[in-house]
């Protein structure tokens, strides 16, 4: 095994090593047990008092969702206004202009939904003020929203019969004060010491060795980059995201950022076990997610380190692997690991251009986002996985001859209906909008829009198709990365991806809370030997099968026309 690959293995193992105790800690935080962060108590109490919130007030699933949606709506309006009028606001040393309404719509939604679909470049599209008070702010609150919702799911699983899913505000505030903020500070400090800028000054001018002068953008970036990774947001301070030497200066920062991407999503799986006191359940879920994750990593590392056969044919040696769109300081294997980590967790930050991944790896990252539940975004990953569990529970319940039940609650028509709709929704959004875009390109390439559909794609044929498929898959998964060959800053893409982002975020997180709310309300059925245990490896295999089959059936034709066609043509 060469050093690069060994590096990726060590990074992953180190992440697991950190995630386990973090999961335990997160469970303690939400159980309200004593933790070393209890010194935040007065801060939290202050917020609650100012806002007139009683953090111990119980909420049923409808109240919980109402609280979540109201505050999110407020943030959307706030963010859009600030982005449009950013040129009139302070902290704009480079004199960047305000965003157009459609771009502001897209950007505000993108970060509100814990995504980072950026149809702009941070250097010129935002000011320091909006970077901090829109982007960084939303990166914290959207991640905290996901965690708060997940705790509601935990409560529903934990209690025998209850209406009470906990208090949204309480979980939301504590997610920030006790999890996201402390971890971000640690990561930001590491980044800052490794060279990531933390300055409020404007562009710097440097003279290169060749004697040219170059304008280098900078700003208070380290803190934003920390939360973008930890909160699975992924939006870059700079346009090229973590491939930028100031966002991700060296192998150490790359390792730290990779760990940050995976850390909280994995920790939350363990937290489930500790919180609901079913460690086996958490173990099985972790195992299922990890099996697919490791397989995906292996495929990507294999293809990226092997290089591109087209270049082989030219007789050019590719000892460092396929280096198109990759950073020499990081290497092909590290980028391959990152590409899977960032798409598994709906993070979306990149340290190399996904557009340049070899076809199979490109297919894998698209597939990864289609599943969107291998660890997944903070909080929301497990919520997505829960939908797969419900379908698996239903099918396997029938197969063992019992009305299906999950954690002592019968899964009936209403729950199946909601779960089925959500499964359907992803297929509808991704394939429906990709079809719309493909239709425009095929039939109306010269329509009189500011950017003609014919000019959207920098790559013809299969890869162009993959670019469009990737864009909507990424939007639906709230991932945010892109095959950046796509010309996406125009009204068609800004609006359509904005719609996909919104629907793709909120319906899939409302649904699991609704399901668990309905389930938790039902009579609790104690386990008997005839009950199919959901915390068994057999059930894990069942869930794995459901994930694979549902995804394969929904997307195989699309994948065949994009990445697979490209792969088979090239190899």
């Amino acid at each position, binding site marked *: 095994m060469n050093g690069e690959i060994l590096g990726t293995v060590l990074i992953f193992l180190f992440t697991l090593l950190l995630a386990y105790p973090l999961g335990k800690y997160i469970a303690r935080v939400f159980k309200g047990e004593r933790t070393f962060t209890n010194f935040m108590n007065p801060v939290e109490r202050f917020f609650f008092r100012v806002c007139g919130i009683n953090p111990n007030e119980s909420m049923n699933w409808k109240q919980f969702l109402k609280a979540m949606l109201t505050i999110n709506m407020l943030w959307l309006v706030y963010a859009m206004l600030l982005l449009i009028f950013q040129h009139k606001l302070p902290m704009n040393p480079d004199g960047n202009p305000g965003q157009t309404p459609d771009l502001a719509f897209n950007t505000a939604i993108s970060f509100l939904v814990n995504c980072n679909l950026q149809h702009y470049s941070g250097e010129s599209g935002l000011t320091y003020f909006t970077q901090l008070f829109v982007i960084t702010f939303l990166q914290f609150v959207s991640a905290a929203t996901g965690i708060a919702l997940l705790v509601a799911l935990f409560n529903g699983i934990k209690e025998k019969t209850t209406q009470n899913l906990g208090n949204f505000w309480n979980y939301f505030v504590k997610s920030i004060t006790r999890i996201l903020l402390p971890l971000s500070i640690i990561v930001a400090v590491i980044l800052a010491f490794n060279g990531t800028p933390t300055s409020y000054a404007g562009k710097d001018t440097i003279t290169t060795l060749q004697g040219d002068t170059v304008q280098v953008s900078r700003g208070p970036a380290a803190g934003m980059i920390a939360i973008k990774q930890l909160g699975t947001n992924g939006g870059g301070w700079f346009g090229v995201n973590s491939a930028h030497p100031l966002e991700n200066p060296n192998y150490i920062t790359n390792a730290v950022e990779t760990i940050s991407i995976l850390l909280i999503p994995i920790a939350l799986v363990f937290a489930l076990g500790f919180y609901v006191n079913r460690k086996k359940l958490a173990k099985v879920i972790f195992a299922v997610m990890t099996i697919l994750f490791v397989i995906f990593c292996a495929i990507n590392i294999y293809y990226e380190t092997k290089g591109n056969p087209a270049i082989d044919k030219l007789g050019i040696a590719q000892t460092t692997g396929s280096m198109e769109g990759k950073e020499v300081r990081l290497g092909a294997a590290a980028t391959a690991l990152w590409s899977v980590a960032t798409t598994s967790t709906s993070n979306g930050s990149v340290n190399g251009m996904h557009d340049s991944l070899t076809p199979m790896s490109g297919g894998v990252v698209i597939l990864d986002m289609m599943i969107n539940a291998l660890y997944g975004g903070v909080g929301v990953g497990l919520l997505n996985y829960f939908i797969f569990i419900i379908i698996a529970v239903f099918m396997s319940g029938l197969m063992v001859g019992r009305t299906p039940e999950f954690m002592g609650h019968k899964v009936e028509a209403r729950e199946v209906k909601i779960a089925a709709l959500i*499964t359907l929704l992803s297929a509808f959004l991704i394939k429906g909008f990709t079809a719309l875009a493909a239709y425009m390109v095929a039939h109306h390439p010269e329509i009189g829009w500011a950017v003609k559909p014919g000019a959207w794609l920098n790559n013809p044929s299969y890869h162009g198709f993959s670019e469009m498929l990737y864009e909507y898959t990424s939007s639906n998964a709230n991932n945010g990365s892109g095959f950046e060959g796509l010309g996406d800053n125009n009204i068609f893409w800004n609006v359509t991806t904005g719609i996909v982002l919104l629907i793709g975020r909120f319906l899939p997180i409302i649904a699991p809370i609704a399901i668990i709310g309905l389930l938790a309300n039902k009579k*609790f059925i104690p386990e008997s030997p005839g009950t199919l245990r959901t915390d*068994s490896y057999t059930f894990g295999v069942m869930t794995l099968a459901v994930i694979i089959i549902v995804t394969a059936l929904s997307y195989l034709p699309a994948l065949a026309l994009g990445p697979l066609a490209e792969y088979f043509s090239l190899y």
Partner: protein
Amino acid sequence: MTKHKRTIRLFDPALVGTAAKQSFIKLNPRLMIRNPVMFTVEIATAVMLAVCIWQMVTGNMSQGELWYNITIFVILFITVLFANFAEGIAEARGKAQAESLRRTREDTPAKKVSGSSITIVSSSQLRKNDLFICEASDLIPMDGEIVEGIATIDESAITGESAPVIREAGGDKSSVTGGTKVLSDRIKVRVTTEPGESFLDKMIALVEGASRQKTPNEIALTILLAAFTLIFIIVCVTLKPFADYANTPITIAAFVSLFVCLIPTTIGGLLSAIGIAGMDRALRANVIAKSGKAVETAGDVDVLLLDKTGTITIGNRKATNFYPANGVDKTTFIEACALSSIADQTPEGKSIIELANVNVKNFDTNNARFIEFTAETRSSGVDLAGGRRIRKGAFDSIKNIVVKAGNSFPDETALQVNTISSNGGTPLVVCENEKVLGVIELQDIIKPGIQERFERLRKMGVKTVMVTGDNPLTAKYIAEKAGVDDFIAEAKPEDKMNYIRKEQQAGKLVAMMGDGTNDAPALAQADVGVSMNSGTQAAKEAGNMVDLDNDPTKLIEVVEIGKQLLITRGTLTTFSIANDVAKYFAIVPALFIASIPALQSLNIMRLDSPESAILSAIIFNALIIPILIPLALKGVQYRPIGASALLRRNLLVYGLGGIIAPFIGIKLIDMLLGLFM
């Protein structure tokens, strides 16, 4: 006792004929829409028909060759027919089963009581609450309740059981069923149902589909299947712009074929057949279910309440041992026991004689005076001419007699009495001339094989509860010996009710069987209440199933039928969806091979040509329905091996099997087609 099970061959020619006719009748879209999956196939068939007609009229060949499109149309049409046939044959079988029961109640003359006179009318003229008389060798014209008299009745027409049964007014065995025959005596019966409204009529209506309602699990499954169908609609609709982008023309026939292959037609076509077959299996077990839901719920039952007598133990206690007192000769003792029981007509008394193994006719019983058992003396016996006074009875009553006469009760006998009691037996002490001779041990005899059945239930996760009037000590002993999990001792009817409520509050589903009127509230409260056909009308109304055999162990069978029903649905759904993987590999490369030759690599089955690939896939899709009909009708066997093991097994057989089977099937069909194309 003989038992003739009515069996119907799986594909009885007469039934196949009816089912075939039904397959066409069911093409009516208004009937098809009840089954969304097959309804979409019917629409797809109509689309293909339109394409063919359009081609014939215009001669336009842009949609592929005419023969090919016609072939696709025919295969799709056959697919719909196969699905309808599956439902039709299930219905026909259920109906045949029910008819064979109903045939027993053709028009029979009835002796109707009007005022004081008796008129002979046709049974169809009897209405609810009419009274009629039945005498020896009369057929009972209608279901009813005996209001006067007692009779032996041959119920073999209904139950297949040849031994006659006794039915009498009052009490818990007062119901008679139409079509059964009175063998002796005379009874007056009140009609309890209007014509056409008996349980059997209701069951037939359920099977025929007129009033068949989908069960909760069936509804949930239909929703899931509808969602899958929608996903595949999205897949197919979006494929059009995708193909435009890739500059690949795709014919309507190819779209329709892809769609029909992908949607879960296998389970969609078999779903209602599975449901009907479940009810049919119940009927075959001589259980009339009042709704499909009841059968399904039976599979979920967590707690089973069983009466001790008749279910766990054979009717009555039996003598199992003789323990003579010290200094008493065993033969003498046994002889005394037998003598005291000669006139004792109770089953216990008879069993003593049986165990003593003596010929009672050898005894000299001339001038003997037999003393009958009374509740007051709690003993019985005989005074022989020779002056021997033999008594047998409960421990304290005999002790009374003995002590009153100034004799002592031997300690070792008292000890023996205690031992027997604590072993769940009943001691009967025997004395002669006020001196203790010894003790007879009576024991409940646990039915052979019942332990294994309880073990099976335990593996299914069903808790068994024995209900008995015995004292707690005896109850506990029998419960342990029979292997039930819990017992209710000294049970009163309200105890059953309370127990059911308690379990239900804990979230359990409870099943019970009962016959008496005082069982009715508990039967109604239980989630699955099976009443015996011999039971009172109130009990039959309260429960949701009626057991024609009056067999208390029937509950166990009912639970398995319920489980089988769910398993069959689950496994066939899994199979159906797993099939799609292979179909993708057949059709997707076929669609794009012309414009994207690289996708030939996806054609891992190496199918001959795009046309034969598509044809093979839809032919396989059509054929798999009739191939699976026998499985749908018979049901996938339930194995009590624990939920996880069962899931592993079914996942392997129907999941993995469902992925592999079509690869083989489609390849074979393709090879066959290669011979013609």
